């Protein structure tokens, strides 16, 4: 007699192999739910419990979550784009043209990567201002704010290095304008510019350097700082709640009693 889907799932989840991978086991008890977070190498960065009122849209607007969402979309579409792209001067531009006209869904892939990149920059800024106006940067969360500033800079650098890769007029001149600013740094300016471009002009060397920065160095740095950023939320006492803000303490308690 054929079993239902749920019964097969139950059988699978109780199997020895499954239990060796997911040790939290089957069940919906509080303990099982807590273990599902705590026993998972990726999810254990997050706390096992969250204050209920932080779930509402108004508390965070989910801006941090959404920024992470754009990052995931960018990693997936970025890796797929890498399959069709050569970071060399005659080929880069024609590869992007191929993506637009020859590759199946290539145009859609590039559009999604481009618009997600813009969205990520916007969301990272929005997240920063939201955290500021909530006062969530205050002790003990000072260091996580600093990690967030680093992540904002990484986001800008990621977006900026990606800007050169299509090797069209827009890309070339935006990077020329930007890297000329680097040479304005006192004493070291021209050296920094040379290091960045691998030469004195925006040319094939610059494209290769920006490609390596965009696809390897900066994403790895972003992954590292993201892990610290999430882990610190848990270590610093979970998502910030307004009670600890000195100015609103007295006012909030009466509101809270109403809601209880």
């Amino acid at each position: 007699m054929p079993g239902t889907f749920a019964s097969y799932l139950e059988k699978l989840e109780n199997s020895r192999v499954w239990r060796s991978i997911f040790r939290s086991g089957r069940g919906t008890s509080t303990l099982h739910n807590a273990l599902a977070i705590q026993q998972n190498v990726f999810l254990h960065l997050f706390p096992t419990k969250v204050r209920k009122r932080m779930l509402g849209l108004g508390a965070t607007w989910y801006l941090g979550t959404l920024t992470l969402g754009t990052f995931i979309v960018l990693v997936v579409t970025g890796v797929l784009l890498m399959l069709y792209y050569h970071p060399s001067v005659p080929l880069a531009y024609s590869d992007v043209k191929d993506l637009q006209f020859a590759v199946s869904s290539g145009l859609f892939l590039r559009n999604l990567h481009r618009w997600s990149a813009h969205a990520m920059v916007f969301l990272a800024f929005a997240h920063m201002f939201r955290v500021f106006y909530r006062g969530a940067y205050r002790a003990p969360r000072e260091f996580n704010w600093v990690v967030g500033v680093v992540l904002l800079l990484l986001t800008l650098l990621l977006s900026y290095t990606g800007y050169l890769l299509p090797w069209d007029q827009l890309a070339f001149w935006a990077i020329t304008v930007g890297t000329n600013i680097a040479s304005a740094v006192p004493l070291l300016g021209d050296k920094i510019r040379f290091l960045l471009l691998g030469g004195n002009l925006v040319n094939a060397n610059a494209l290769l350097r920006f490609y390596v920065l965009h696809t390897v160095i900066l994403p790895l740095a972003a992954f590292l700082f993201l892990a610290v950023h999430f882990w610190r939320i848990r270590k610093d006492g979970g998502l910030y709640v307004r009670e600890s803000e000195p100015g609103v303490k007295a006012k909030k308690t009466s509101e809270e009693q109403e809601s209880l």
Partner: protein
Amino acid sequence: MTTPKDFKAEIGSDMRVSQKRVLFITRRTSPQVKTHDELKVQTFPEVLIRAVLAVEVLLVALVTMSLLFNAPLEGLANPTNTPNPAKAPWYFLGLQEMLHYFPPVVAGVIIPGLLVVSLIVIPYFDINVEAEGFFLKNRKQRFLWAMIVSGTLSLFLLVFDVYVALVPTLIMAGLLLTAAYSTPETKNRFRRYLALKPISWWIMTWFLFELFVLTVVGTFFRGPGWSWVLPWRS
């Protein structure tokens, strides 16, 4: 006689035995422990499912946008043909706008450097800790300081013809003036709101305002030779 050996407890030494953890239970609650009673939910599945849903809504929006609008792609890069204007990505256009008024070392190095440093020091700066209205204490002294700072800044922007940045500065100075003459008991709701804002709020809001105005002007209102153009009359 042998010299007495100098025994020191060392943290870095290799421990050959595993420690025993001793727990002391005292009567007093540690200052770290807050006895605040608050409803909590399990991250799995309640928070996780909401996070996934939020990302899915975002994905729908991004996919829709990608289906409707194509990413720009211009002609092949040509070092001999400079487009006019050559614009940076939108999030750098505020800086490019500054570059129009100030030498590169100021607009490209000092201003962004100061911005990053100011962002980093925000949580370590003592004045931010008190989340009380700026003018609720030492009103006269603070009013003087607020006027000196915003006056100097406005004069500086006026001297360098940076009208684009001057307008938001003057508006913020006006609001600051309103806040100085308001108290939490003022009848007008907006003035009451302003009176309760701390100094950190004023600085950040000024920055946000400038960032917004400069980026919008750089994106839509700048044409050939960085001249002023109206986007609806192209």
